[in-house]
């Protein structure tokens, strides 16, 4: 194990995969400028700066992916994905299907999001659910350095288009990363903390929030299990349902706005398939249906707090409808 930041863990993943497969290349706004180490090792053909034009960055990746390359693109901030929606949703997500399976689209689109830098809602907007709703795409949103590395490597090796969301607040968080080859499979959730009484389902920056809430709950005699989804799509339904059936109490936690968010999908999944195990209604603790603000205290207020998660779990533990 080596301690490294999320940023450096991603850099390791990129370098290892580019070393392994000459078809992998990376381009985007400032990629060659900011990743000088990759530029030095792999050259200007495989590490490229681009114009500030997200549509053509994404479209170029889609066209390249269909014809033999394995591009990784950095689109900077998640709201900028709006400029690349056609290329990612209509082309990358659909043209395999529409062509009757003639083409693969092995590409990774990286974008940052989330509270932490006080940049306001045109740079911070957790839009992962938009892409989970689009057919043909995969969506990844890790919570710690080891997963960032292992999931990014798997995403690059995947033959499908993957949206890889980087929670800004985690970017310079240190974490233990295994030495040597580390792959974390897409579509596999992790039990970040085992527990018996209540299941906290989350991903990205709110996983640490849930872990802190679990600490507080433990002091009160409530044993909380924390499920880190890691991949939003494909969703590890089995992991969610197994834990939900065992505890009978589920809180879904994410920073993204509530309405039609990932939490709604998880809640519906549990209601459809584990209803008979539930001892209380599924709860959601999420960001509000508001644009994320810039002002630091307002931005922090947007994010589900340890206290709010603990309180939701506490209420569920007290409740019993059967």
């Amino acid at each position, binding site marked *: 194990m080596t301690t490294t930041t999320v940023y450096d863990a991603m850099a390791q993943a990129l370098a290892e995969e580019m*070393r*392994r*497969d*000459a*078809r992998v*290349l990376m381009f985007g706004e400032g990629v060659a400028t900011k990743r000088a180490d990759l530029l030095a090792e792999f050259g200007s*053909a*495989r590490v*490229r700066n*681009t*114009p500030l*034009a997200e*549509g*053509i960055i*994404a*479209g*170029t*990746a*889609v*066209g*390249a*992916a*269909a*014809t*033999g*390359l*394995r*591009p990784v693109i950095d689109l900077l901030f998640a709201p900028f994905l709006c400029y690349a929606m*056609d*290329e990612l949703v*209509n*082309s990358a997500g659909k*043209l*395999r*299907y*529409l*062509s*009757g*399976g*003639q*083409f*693969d*689209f*092995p590409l990774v689109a990286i974008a940052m999001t989330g509270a932490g830098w006080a940049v306001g809602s045109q740079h911070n907007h957790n839009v992962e659910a938009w892409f989970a709703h689009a*057919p*043909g795409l*995969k969506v990844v949103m890790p919570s710690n350095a080891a997963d960032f590395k292992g999931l990014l490597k798997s995403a690059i*090796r995947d*033959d*499908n288009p993957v949206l890889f969301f980087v929670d800004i607040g985690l970017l310079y968080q240190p974490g233990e990363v295994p030495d040597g080859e580390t792959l974390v499979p897409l579509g596999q959730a992790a039990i970040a903390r085992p527990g018996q009484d209540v299941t906290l389902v989350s991903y990205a920056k709110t996983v640490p929030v849930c872990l802190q809430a679990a600490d507080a709950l433990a002091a009160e005699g409530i044993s909380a299990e924390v499920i880190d989804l890691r991949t939003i799509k494909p969703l590890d339904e089995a992991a969610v349902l197994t834990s939900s059936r065992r505890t009978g109490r589920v809180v879904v936690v994410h920073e993204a706005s509530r309405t039609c968010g990932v939490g709604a999908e998880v809640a519906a999944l549990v209601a459809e398939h584990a209803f008979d195990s539930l001892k209380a209604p599924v709860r959601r603790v999420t960001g509000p249906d508001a644009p994320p603000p810039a002002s630091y205290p307002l931005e922090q207020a947007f994010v589900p707090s340890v206290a709010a998660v603990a309180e939701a779990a506490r209420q569920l533990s007290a409740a019993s409808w059967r």
Partner: protein
Amino acid sequence: MNTVSPAAPARAAAPVSPASAAIPRLEQPEALLEAMLLIRAYELRLSEHSARSGTPGTCTAVGQEAAAVGVVSMLSADDLILTNHRSAGHLLARGADPGRMMAEVLGRRDGYCKGKSGSLHISVRELGVVLTSTIVGGELSLATGVALSQTMLGRPGIVACFFGDGAAGEGTFHESLNLAAVWKLPILYVCENNEWQAFVHRRETMVGERIAARAAPYGIASASVDGNDVEAVRAAARAASDSIRDTGRPFLLELSTYRLRGHFEPDDQAYVNAAELAAWQARDPIARMKASLLAGGGFTPGDLDGIETRVAARIDAAMAFAEASPWPDPAELLTDIYA
């Protein structure tokens, strides 16, 4: 660029344009005329079928056959094609089987895309028609990546990207030209300026007459020619592709033509100026080609009858094949979503 490492999986490295045998060599005037007649007959037959049966109508390019045949006939087997919703001409000129295309349009199992595309986004990998987007401008956003693959993987072919004057109004047109110029990508941008952008005349949406004029600010060479004269198109396409192969840089070729039918079938074209339509009907590229051949000697009305009979028989057989093709199995709904 480095070669692919042995540790890497090999599947995505398969060439995209292997089957040059299926790509016809269109050179002789009679062959060019026959290709144009085949496209016309194909589109009119599907339009009739749609009107009669109520199946979804297609976006035709009737009147634009010289543009398609002229450019595609000048491409080599290594070259790749991206096209759009008005793609029948490009596909047929490249050698696509009209029966499998019609089966696709009818949503049948034997269509090139298993019936999942319909008429709007037909791709044929073995012919190098690599991507088709019906989102106007989508093909422009993808062409840069296809050309990047060609250069980085050391493949010889250039990339022909067909779009209309409507797509030239999309932001991605400018983004694509700019990146292709900056990265020196071998793209033949082919703007089939057919005067119509869905239900809106080009004059309402642009100042000036020529899309080709937009190339120079990006440092891209361009030409604008009569798109209803197949030999003029061929000469321009040859010059453009020679320029791309010589310089490695993109080229914008604008072909002036006209959409003689509506945006999609059925369309009564009540919004079309009758005098303008009549003027362009008088410049019908197929009628011009016929007249030219018949006037030149050595080509007789009997020869023309022979070609037209052959084309009609192919279209009859194609429609029979398509109608006999089974519907897809319902289980196909959930295949081909992910690799």
